[in-house]
């Protein structure tokens, strides 16, 4: 129907309701289908140990994905998160090697990430640079700082806390998984049960309307960019603990997976729709897929291709059903 408003109610048609529902539940069906598939076709997939492996494999992505969820909900994007993670890891290791007392290296690492995230936010919200441009530049800056600090070497002096959280266990559960779960939980509580969380959703749903309702949308966008940077920094800090070293390119490759997981879960690239539960589903899809492909005898060189195709399918789906925003 044209833009011309007609004073007749728009009944929620069954077809439309079905589309909305499928959009919401498609990721869950995808996850279940993958899970069933691998359970049937592999003996080693459906074991307690392997389930633990999957969680462990997606833990870092989960920490990073929490922040990305905030960013996508405001209809922005952050392409610098993985480089921020690398940088935070490098900074933490660098100051540990410099014998700065603990936990200062970790605090500084997170502050550096927060500061760079703040610049991302200022550039996007106040200077009006598209977020993908600002964060693209920031990814080079973060990456450049990592290289400069390490002079290209690998750092082996790690904060003990990072080592514990990255590779330690408590009551048989990996700390890493606990940190990831807590990050997701806090993210969820903030988004669903705080005023700020509501502002995030409303800013993404219609930035102009949010501004008209007195929401400081620029501050909201700046805040989500800081949140994304800090969660990325946290991922970097615990990540070096898991790897046992900090390298200047340690987590750079996680970018696609981190954003992909969030989108796979069903959080809209156009803002306002989605959340942490969706991100959890997306993470599990990615985790099950990666892990499952290892368990069945698939050509190892096809793994990336298959993952890519599934990610593309999810994106297409996301775009198709985002059409309802225009309705």
């Amino acid at each position: 129907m044209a833009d011309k408003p007609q004073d007749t109610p728009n009944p929620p048609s069954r077809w439309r309701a079905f589309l909305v529902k499928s959009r919401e539940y498609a990721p869950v069906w995808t996850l279940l289908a993958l899970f069933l598939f691998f359970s049937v076709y592999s003996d080693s997939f459906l074991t307690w140990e392997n389930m633990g492996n999957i969680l462990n494999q997606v833990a870092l992505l989960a920490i990073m994905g929490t922040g990305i969820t905030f960013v996508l909900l405001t209809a922005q994007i952050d392409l610098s998160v993985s480089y921020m993670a690398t940088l935070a890891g490098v900074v933490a290791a660098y100051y540990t090697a410099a014998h700065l007392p603990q936990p200062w290296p970790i605090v500084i690492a997170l502050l550096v990430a927060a500061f760079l995230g703040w610049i991302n936010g200022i550039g996007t919200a106040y200077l009006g640079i598209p977020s993908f441009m600002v964060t693209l530049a920031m990814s080079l800056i973060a990456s450049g700082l990592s290289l400069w600090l390490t002079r290209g070497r690998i750092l082996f002096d790690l904060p003990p806390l990072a080592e514990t959280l990255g590779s330690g266990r408590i009551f048989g559960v990996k700390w890493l998984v606990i940190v990831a779960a807590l990050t997701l939980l806090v993210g969820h509580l903030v988004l669903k049960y705080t005023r700020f969380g509501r502002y995030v959703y409303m800013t993404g749903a219609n930035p102009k309307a949010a501004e008209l309702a007195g929401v400081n949308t620029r501050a909201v966008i700046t805040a989500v960019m800081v949140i994304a940077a800090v969660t990325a920094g946290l991922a970097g800090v615990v990540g070096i603990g898991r790897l046992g070293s900090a390298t200047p390119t340690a987590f750079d490759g996680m970018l696609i997976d981190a954003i992909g997981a969030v989108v796979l879960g069903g959080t809209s690239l156009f803002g306002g729709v989605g959340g942490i539960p969706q991100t959890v589903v997306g993470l599990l899809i990615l985790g099950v897929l990666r892990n499952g492909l290892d368990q069945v005898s698939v050509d190892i060189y096809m793994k990336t291709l298959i993952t890519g195709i599934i990610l593309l399918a999810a994106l297409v789906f996301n775009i198709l059903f985002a059409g309802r925003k225009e309705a």
Partner: protein
Amino acid sequence: METTAPLLELHDVSKRFGGIQALSGIDFDVRPGEVHALVGENGAGKSTMMKILAGVIPDYEGQMAWKGRPVRLRNPRHALGLGIAMIHQELSVMPELTVAENIFLGRQPLAGGVVDWRRMFREAAAILEELGFGHINVREPLERYPLGVHQLAEIARALTSGAELIIMDEPTSALSPMETQHLLELTRGLAASGKSVVYISHFLEEVTWVSDRVTVLRDGQKIATLDADQTNKEELVQLMLGKKAAFIEESYLHGRAVQDAHAGARPVLELEGLTRPRLFEDVSFQLHAGEILGIYGLIGSGHFELGEAIYGLLRPSSGRIRLGGAPLGHGPRRAIDRGVAYVPPSRRTGLFLEKPIYQNISLPWLAKISGFVPNVRKEIEVADQVTRRVGVRPPDPLKEVAFLSGGNQQKVAISRWLVEPPKVFVVSEPTRGMDVGAKEEVMKILRELSEAGVGVLLISSEPETVLAASERVLVMAKGRIVREFVGETVTKEQLLAAAAGEMATAATAR
């Protein structure tokens, strides 16, 4: 006019959208060389009928015949191929391209696979010359010309594509009076040269002037087809409205007495020399508590921007805004906290369509309704109260706004500001695109607010809207206040004349 074989005929055409009968049993025909107007309220079925004529809606019941032969249009391209072109309400032009490119959009003359620019410019100039607009330089970007020329480019495009029937949907709604006059004359000229036009408009004077016959639709049914010279505005309004509320009829037909009931009272809002270059200049006025002050202007007069400036969305370059005697700071948050409410001219801008009603209403008040953690139950309760007060249907705060009709969406936009009664309420175009009943309901809310002591600033480009409620009317043109009506009877014609008169002098002053 003698009876000739019709160019296009509809017989017993009906269309249903879900549970809504948009059109039922329509008989309609257009003769060669005729301007046939289609009038009716919003929702009467004009848009649906136009879309059937243009091939946008292929699945309707009933028959259509083109030049005596039965035809079923599959899509707009099919319609265009036969010779039916549509000029859209929202223009489909590319302002950055040249006038000529816009005329030949998608059909540029080619020479050896590349665009033959010389031929395109020549032919574009020829067609404009033919239409009486030879002074337009077809090599200039279209954006250098006013909206009237954009419309002209669309018409020229239709003609060069070989159209015999041109459907014009509200062609003059964004045009100045002079441009409107040109367009009307052009339309008559088209008819004289044998083309047929289906002319859809709200502006009944234009309709009776330009058309040969008028068909009136109401609630999806054809009420009458009349010879334009046998009817008049009053009769058309009667036919369009049927037995509906007398309210709008009155403001369509008669003047409205305005008086300054608040002379001497302390103003709640004062503007002093407010200026923002190219938008508005040296605007000063006072708004009193309990007053409804109308600001009328043609589109582009700066009156909507003035509303934005008062709400703190636009920073004026000079001048002062005082609320209750004290300067009003910048920004919507400040405005809200000081008791200024604002409803923007477009509902799409102001509402979150895919969010539930209660979230739309509570957003400005979240900090007050509940603390750090939003209390959803309380939000719903508050939303329920205010939406019941203004009569939002359905009265379900959990419903998404997108599911509401335009009028009810507007009521949601307004009801948000009843949570804490404002001191000043700036409403821009509150009843655009609504039916008579919904319009009256919205106006009633505004009147009740003013009776409760709220100063209402009613900004609109529809004279009826301003006249329906205002006690005093300011007319803006080219960013300035050009006329104030107080203590007299004002008619729609006077408003238009005040706004348009200034336009004419401003144009000649250049």
